[in-house]
C-alpha cells in the first residue's frame, strides 16, 4: 500500500483553491440519493453532519451520550484561534501557519496546516452568524486575547466556556437539520464496528445502549468524528466516556493509525488527591498569563508556601526561559514540572504538584482585576480542592489532555479505507507533535464546516450512487463478531472490576509512555500490557446482561479496545528514536535537557497497519517536507 497524501501541486497559498476546483461535484439533484453516516457529535461531527445535511445529503448521526450537545468539545475553556488580525498586531494567515508548524515541532503537514490557517477566519464569521456570544469590547467589536504563548492576540473566546458555546452553535445547526428531517439522530447509540464491503467503508454496526440491540446501518460513506484517546491513561482531562473504540475498530479493518505516541500532557491541571480519583480537571492555560510557577528550592520542603521567602523559591520557568517565562509551550512547561516534582521539590500534601502563584499579580493589578479575569476558575479550583487561590497559591500538575495522533488521512481527510473519512481530534493531521492552545476547536470546526463537505463529494461523485443496504454478508458477519465479543465480556465472570483494570493499564501508560519515555521503560510496558490484557479477558467482572441499559458493559468494551491500542502506542513511542513535542525520549535530549529532534531519520508520519492483536504492526512512512517553514530547533529561551 502506497501512502497517497494527495496534496495538490502549486504554491502553498493556492493549494486549497486548486483542490476545491479539482474535486468532483455531486449534482444537487442527486445529493439526496447519498447516505452519509457521521459518528460523533462534537465540534467536528456536529458541524459536519449539519453542513452535509444543508447540502442535501441524507445524514445519520450517532453519539453514545444522551444528547449530541454533551460531546466533550463542550469542556474546552480557553478559546479558538483565527488569523483575523483584528488587533492590528501583525497577525496573518502566514503567521498562524508558521506558528502552528513550528509549535508542532515539525511533525505536521505544511499543506494541511496552511489550509487550516486560511479557513480559520471563516469559522469565526460562521459562528458569529450562528449567535455564538463571543466576548466583545465596549465598541461592540470582537475581543481577542493572547493565548498559550502566542505573541499576537488571535484567540476569540466566550468567557471560560468557548468550547461550550461553539459546540452549542454546531449543535443548534444540527438540531435544525434534525427538525427538518434531514438528519436522523441516534443518541445513546455506540458504534462498535465498521463494515467494509469490497474494500470500501459501507456502514457501521452499533449497539443501542438502552436496549442492548445490535444493528447495522449502511451508507455511501462513513465519517468518524470520535475524538481522541487520552483516556488510555485512565486519568486524563477527557470526559469519562471518551474512548478509542471507533478509530481502533476502523484500524483493525485497514485504516492506518498515525503517530499514536504523540500525546499532549497539559501543564495546568489540578494534581491527584487520592487513589479514588476518577478524572483530572484542567485549569485554563490562560492562568499562566498572570500566575507565576515555582517550587521551593530545598528538597523535601515542609513549610507553607506563604512563609517560604522569595529567595528560597525557584521560579524555574522564568529562570530557564527568560524570554517566554511562564508562557513556554505546553510540552516544555509540563516536562519541567515533572522534573521539579521528581527532584523531591513537589508541593501539596502528596508532594505531587507545583505552585501557580497569583500573589504578585494581585499586588500589581488588585484583587478585583484578577477576580474579573479568573474568578470562575478560582471558584472551580476552590470547589475541588477546598483551598482559596486568592490566599494560597494554586497547586498544578500536568495531565493527559489531547492526542495529536489519530487515524491517518490524506489531504481530503480520507483514511486508507476508501469512503472512510476522519475529522477532528480523531485524525492526526494538523498538530504535529504538539498542539498549540486554542487550535483544537479551530481544527474540529475547519474539518466539519469547511473541508469535509467539499472533499466527501469528490469521493461520492467518483463511486456511484447505487442504493446501499445492509444486505451484503459483511454486515451480518460483523454483527456476529460484535455480539460474540460482547458476550465474551459478560461470560468472563471474573473477580475484578473494569475500572480496576483500566486504572492499572493507565498507570503502566503513565509510567512508561507518559511525559517522558525510555527504551527500557517502553519495553517493560510492552511486556506488561499483553499480560494484563490476558488477565482482563479472563478475570473481568461485568455485571448485568446485554439486553439492558448496562454502563459496566459499555465501559468494558471500551477498555478492551484501550488494551489493544495501548500496545500500538508503546510500539510507536519505542520506534521514534528522537524527542519531539509531546514525545520526550530521555535518551534524546540536549545538554540543557531540551527535546532533541532527529530530522534526518524521523521527519515522517509513522502510519501503522494492523497485523493482529499482539503482533508487530506494519510501519508505513509518509515523509514530511518543509518547503515554507525551514526546519529549526525550537527555542523559547
Amino acid at each position: 500500500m502506497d501512502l497517497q497524501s494527495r496534496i495538490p501541486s502549486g504554491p502553498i497559498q493556492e493549494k486549497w483553491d486548486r483542490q476545491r476546483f479539482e474535486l468532483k461535484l455531486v449534482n444537487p439533484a442527486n445529493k439526496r440519493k447519498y447516505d452519509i453516516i457521521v459518528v460523533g457529535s462534537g465540534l467536528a461531527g456536529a458541524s459536519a453532519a449539519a453542513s452535509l445535511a444543508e447540502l442535501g445529503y441524507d445524514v445519520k448521526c450517532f453519539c453514545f451520550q444522551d444528547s449530541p450537545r454533551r460531546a466533550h468539545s463542550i469542556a474546552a475553556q480557553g478559546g479558538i484561534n483565527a488569523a483575523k488580525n483584528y488587533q492590528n498586531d501583525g497577525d496573518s494567515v502566514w503567521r498562524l501557519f508558521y506558528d502552528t508548524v513550528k509549535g508542532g515541532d515539525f511533525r505536521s503537514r505544511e499543506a494541511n496546516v496552511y489550509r487550516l490557517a486560511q479557513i480559520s477566519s471563516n469559522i469565526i464569521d460562521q459562528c458569529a452568524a450562528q449567535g455564538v456570544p463571543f466576548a466583545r469590547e465596549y465598541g461592540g467589536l470582537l475581543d481577542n486575547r493572547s493565548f498559550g504563548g502566542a505573541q499576537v492576540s488571535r484567540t476569540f473566546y466566550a468567557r471560560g466556556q468557548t468550547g461550550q458555546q461553539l459546540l452549542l452553535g454546531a449543535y443548534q445547526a444540527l438540531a435544525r437539520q434534525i427538525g427538518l428531517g434531514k438528519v436522523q439522530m441516534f443518541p445513546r447509540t455506540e458504534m462498535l464496528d465498521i463494515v467494509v464491503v469490497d474494500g470500501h467503508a459501507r456502514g457501521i454496526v452499533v449497539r443501542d445502549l438502552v436496549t442492548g440491540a445490535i444493528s447495522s446501518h449502511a451508507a455511501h460513506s462513513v465519517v468518524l468524528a470520535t475524538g481522541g484517546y487520552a483516556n488510555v491513561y485512565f486519568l486524563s482531562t477527557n470526559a469519562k466516556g471518551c474512548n478509542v473504540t471507533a478509530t481502533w475498530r476502523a484500524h483493525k479493518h485497514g485504516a492506518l493509525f498515525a503517530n499514536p505516541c504523540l500525546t499532549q500532557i497539559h501543564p495546568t491541571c489540578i494534581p491527584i488527591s487520592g487513589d479514588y480519583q476518577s478524572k483530572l480537571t484542567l485549569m485554563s492555560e490562560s492562568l499562566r498569563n498572570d500566575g507565576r510557577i515555582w517550587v521551593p528550592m530545598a528538597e523535601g520542603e515542609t513549610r507553607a508556601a506563604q512563609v517560604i521567602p522569595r529567595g528560597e523559591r525557584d521560579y524555574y520557568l522564568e529562570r530557564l526561559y527568560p524570554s517566554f517565562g511562564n508562557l513556554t509551550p505546553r510540552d516544555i512547561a509540563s516536562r519541567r514540572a515533572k522534573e521539579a516534582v521528581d527532584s523531591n521539590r513537589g508541593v501539596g500534601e502528596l508532594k505531587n504538584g507545583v505552585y501557580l502563584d497569583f500573589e504578585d499579580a494581585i499586588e500589581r493589578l488588585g484583587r478585583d482585576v484578577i477576580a474579573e479575569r479568573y474568578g470562575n476558575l478560582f471558584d472551580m479550583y476552590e470547589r475541588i480542592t477546598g483551598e482559596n487561590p486568592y490566599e494560597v497559591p494554586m497547586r498544578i500538575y500536568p495531565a493527559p489532555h489531547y492526542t495529536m495522533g489519530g487515524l491517518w488521512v490524506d489531504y481530503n481527510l480520507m483514511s486508507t479505507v476508501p469512503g472512510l473519512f476522519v475529522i477532528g481530534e480523531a485524525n492526526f493531521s494538523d498538530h504535529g507533535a504538539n498542539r498549540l492552545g486554542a487550535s483544537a476547536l479551530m481544527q474540529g470546526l475547519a474539518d466539519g464546516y469547511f473541508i469535509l463537505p467539499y472533499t466527501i463529494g469528490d469521493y461520492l461523485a467518483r463511486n456511484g450512487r447505487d442504493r446501499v443496504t445492509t444486505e451484503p454478508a459483511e454486515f451480518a458477519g460483523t454483527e456476529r463478531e460484535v455480539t460474540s465479543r460482547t458476550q465474551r465480556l459478560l461470560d468472563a465472570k471474573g473477580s475484578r472490576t473494569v475500572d480496576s483494570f483500566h486504572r492499572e493499564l493507565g498507570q503502566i501508560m503513565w509510567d512508561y509512555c507518559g511525559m517522558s519515555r525510555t527504551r527500557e521503560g517502553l519495553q517493560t510496558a510492552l511486556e506488561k500490557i499483553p499480560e494484563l490484557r490476558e488477565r482482563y479477558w479472563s478475570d473481568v467482572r461485568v455485571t448485568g446482561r446485554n439486553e439492558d441499559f448496562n454502563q459496566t458493559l459499555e465501559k468494558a468494551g471500551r477498555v478492551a479496545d484501550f488494551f489493544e491500542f495501548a500496545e500500538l502506542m508503546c510500539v510507536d513511542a519505542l520506534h521514534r528514536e528522537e524527542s519531539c513535542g509531546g514525545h520526550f525520549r530521555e535518551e534524546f535530549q540536549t545538554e540543557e535537557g531540551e527535546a532533541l529532534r532527529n530530522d534526518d531519520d524521523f521527519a515522517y508520519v509513522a502510519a501503522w497497519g494492523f497485523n493482529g492483536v499482539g503482533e508487530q504492526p506494519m510501519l508505513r512512512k509518509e515523509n514530511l517536507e518543509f518547503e515554507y517553514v525551514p526546519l529549526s530547533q525550537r527555542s523559547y529561551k
Partner: protein
Amino acid sequence: MKLVLHVWRQSRPDAVGAFVRYEVTAIPHMSFLEMLDALNEELTEKGEEPVAFEHDCREGICGSCGLVIDGIPHGPSRGTATCQLHMRKYNDGDEVWVEPWRARAFPVMKDLVVDRSPLDRIIQAGGYISVRTGSPPDANAIPIQKERADLAMDAAACIGCGACVAACPNASAMLFTAAKVSHLGLLPQGQPERFERVLTMVSMMDEAGFGGCTNHGECEVACPKEISVDFIARLNRDLLRASVTAVG
C-alpha cells in the same frame, strides 16, 4: 467519614422503584460521584449491579449528571452541578437521600438515569439561528453592545441538565426554554426569527409534556449555572407579542 445512603433503585422504566440503603466510607476530597464510584466498585465486587447514574465531563459543563440529593437538584451547594459537589460538604454519620430527576417529561430509565430527550426536541423546534454553512458576513460587520453580548452569554451558559425541570413544582422547562429564547433574541443575528422561535419552542415544550410556568423561581435556585428567572420574563414578553401579532 461514614455515611448512610438511600439510593433510588429501579431496574427498568416500567419497574417499581424503591430506596435501597447503603453504608459507604468517603474521604472529604472525593467528589460526590467518586463516592458513588466507590460504592459501585464495592457492589460489583459483591456481584450486585452497580447504581446507574449519568456523568461524563465531571467538570460541570456537559450537563450529563444530575441527581436530586436530599430533595434538592444537584445537592446543597448553589451554582454547582452534582459532579462538582465534594464530600467535604458532609459530616461523618450523615444520611443522604439520592433520587433521579422527577418529571412527567423525563421518564426514569434506570436507577438515577432519566430520559431528557424532550429538551433536544425543544431546541429542534426553533432554538437556533437559520444560517447555512457558507459565507456569512465578516464577524465584525455587526457590532454588538458589550452589555447585550454579556447578557446573551449569561443566558447561553445553560448546560441543558434539566435541574430547572426537576426543581419546578409544575415540572416546567420554562427556564431552559427562556435561556435559549433570550440568548438568541438578544442578538441582532437572532432577530429575523425571534417571534416565530418563541412560539415554536414554547409549543414544543407543552407538547413534550412539561408543565407551565407559574413563577415559583425554584428553577433559578437549582440551576448550576445560576441562570436568572429574568429571562423567563423576557420570554413572556416575546411570547405575548408574538401571539398577538402572529400571522394566520
